């Protein structure tokens, strides 16, 4: 089976400073040789600190910005060779949801107009049936069809993110890029959107590229994870494998720092010393060596390659085989206490799950 998306050696350098005559003097090496592939119906998460290039990668994949080098193949076709009309056709298959649902919806358009626009633009649904399709899209994301006459400002953050998802779904894409889709939302709303994204994936066979800095969310939603540091992937693995045995020292530091909702959780946190080096002038050799607790001389001069271990786990570190065991690096939250487990189940099960519950007349409103 060929992958839905194959990215090979992607490079993007932004010009940071120009001379008086417009010659580039300095480059930000935002993405520097990134390769990965994604199968249909799966989720790949890109994780890393601010400025590691994860958002740039997601924009490159859609050709919202043009790469300097590398190749992107979508369903076997080279995206970089597409002309304008073919690119427009491709955009039907790949969509994006942004972090800020307050900024990504046009405040002057009603929800109906927002959702009709992609249908008209791609000539997908005859105009007579568009109204029906809008209603269907709203139901799909858990909103009532009668809300189509309202404007974005009349909705809460979680509802707006649902509208953004409906807009992405309007063109029936195969790939949706989710760039920090829940970071701006409150905890309880966040879980609704995560549940929705998962449910839609199961129903519609969507593939996601999920960009996030919240690692517990990533563990929950991703099949595969790529850890990025300063424009490069330093480790990639199945989500479960990565979280049970992170291999690269950077991944270890990142995962060990996750705050877990369990007081006195057992952990062996690796607190990184030093600042994140600038992508303007990344250090030679391994780009993590300035902060790495396991650094040796070789790391300062020679850049490590991403080496696969044969079972789907690849790490870019000279010392992979010599590092101490990764046991107990990822903090354990022990799941729920028995009481909490039952309470959460009852909470989710609604009034009928609760012993001796009196009424259900108060009916809740979908958010």
């Amino acid at each position, binding site marked *: 089976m060929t992958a839905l998306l194959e990215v090979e050696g992607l490079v993007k350098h932004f010009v940071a400073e120009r001379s008086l005559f417009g010659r580039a003097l300095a480059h930000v090496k935002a993405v520097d040789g990134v390769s990965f592939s994604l199968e249909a119906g799966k989720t790949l998460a890109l994780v890393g600190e601010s400025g590691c290039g994860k958002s740039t990668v997601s924009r490159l994949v859609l050709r919202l910005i043009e790469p300097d080098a590398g190749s992107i193949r979508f369903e076997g076709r080279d995206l970089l060779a597409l002309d304008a009309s073919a690119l427009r056709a491709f955009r039907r298959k790949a969509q994006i949801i942004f972090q800020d649902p307050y900024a990504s919806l046009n405040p002057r358009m009603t929800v109906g107009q927002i959702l009709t626009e992609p249908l008209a633009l791609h000539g997908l649904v005859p105009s007579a049936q568009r109204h029906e399709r809008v209603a269907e899209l709203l139901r799909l994301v858990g909103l009532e069809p009668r809300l189509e006459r309202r404007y974005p400002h009349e909705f809460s953050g979680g509802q707006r993110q649902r509208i953004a998802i409906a807009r992405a779904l309007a063109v029936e894409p195969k790939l949706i890029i989710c760039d920090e889709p829940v970071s701006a939302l409150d905890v309880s709303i966040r879980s609704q959107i995560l549940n929705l994204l998962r449910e839609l994936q199961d129903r519609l066979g969507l593939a996601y590229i999920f960009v996030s800095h919240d690692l517990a969310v990533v563990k929950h939603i991703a099949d595969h994870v790529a850890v990025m540091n300063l424009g490069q992937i330093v480790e990639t693995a199945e989500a479960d494998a990565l979280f049970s045995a992170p291999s690269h020292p950077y991944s270890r530091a990142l995962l060990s720092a996750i705050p877990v909702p369990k007081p006195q959780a057992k952990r062996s946190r690796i607190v990184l010393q030093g600042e994140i080096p600038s992508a303007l002038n990344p250090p030679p050799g391994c780009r993590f060596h300035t902060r790495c607790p396991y650094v040796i001389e070789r790391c300062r001069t020679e850049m490590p390659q991403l080496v696969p271990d044969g079972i789907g786990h690849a790490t870019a570190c000279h010392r992979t085989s010599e590092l101490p065991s990764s046991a107990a690096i990822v903090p354990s939250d022990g799941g*729920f206490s028995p009481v909490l487990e039952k309470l959460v189940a009852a909470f989710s099960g609604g009034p009928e799950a609760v012993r001796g519950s009196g009424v259900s007349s*108060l009916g809740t409103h979908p958010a």
Partner: protein
Amino acid sequence: MSGSPLIEITDLRIRFHGDDGRITHAVDGVDLSVANGATLGLVGESGCGKSVTSLAIMGLLPKQSAEISGAIHFDGFDLLKTPDQMLRDLRGNRLAMIFQEPMTSLNPSFTIGDQIIETILRHRGGSRKSARERAIDLLRRVHIPSPERRIDEYPHKLSGGMRQRVMIAMALACDPRLLIADEPTTALDVTLQAQILELMRELKAASGAAIILITHDLGVVAEVCDEVAVMYAGEIVERAPVDELFSAPQHPYTVGLLGSIPRLDHRTEQLATIEGMVPNMAQPPAGCRFAARCPFVLDACTKAPPPLIEVSPSHLSRCIRAPLERLVS
């Protein structure tokens, strides 16, 4: 909490008068206390009143639009009745605050050294030279590399994590008795968050200051707090020692919150969700404010506002169905 508390808030009510004549009840009868050296987590979602409570402690709410009643006893003062001049002596001295946005809470046109030194001179006096030495020492305590050089830099030269450390250094400049930290790590990456939390723990151990940590991140709460107060729609709905809150919560809202965060050790297809919306605080509902979203609701819940009851020693819940274990055993 044993002994007399460092800060004791009783029946704090804050109402905002909008331009259109509407009155919003942002905080409605909050009682809180923090003992010396303890860390209290104040948890809740956007708009629940947690930040407004902290601004009231600091005396930073606009006098024209905010109507405040109740009492905030701190160190022998009632902060709500203290004249502005005296409040200015307390703020930055015995009372200090760290804000979420390290980018906007430092003045861009002064060096970080100037800003820390100003605080020291204002409250402690002494020579500029000795204040500068103290500032360098503070920067070193918050692990800013080569503080002798950094002290003369402007905020824009520093990264987000460094700026937050400068904010902490400034807050600690006069050894405050109470430090209020409003979402101090929300804008930071996990690795930096780990550094800052570590730092706060270290500093608390060294200085014995009490901390009120305001956050929506229950992971952070579990890590640094001794006690937690959960706020919903302007009220405290549950208050408990941190262990108990996470193992046996006694308010349905807390149960919903705990169920809605993805766990590392607990793979579920579906996360718990809290359906519905926060009530309109211009007209709070007559009964329990969470009733419309609560799966455990009874008729009685909507009739009268539930009192904050003691479910077990030092564990309070504003739910007539507590203890909740009864509902599921």
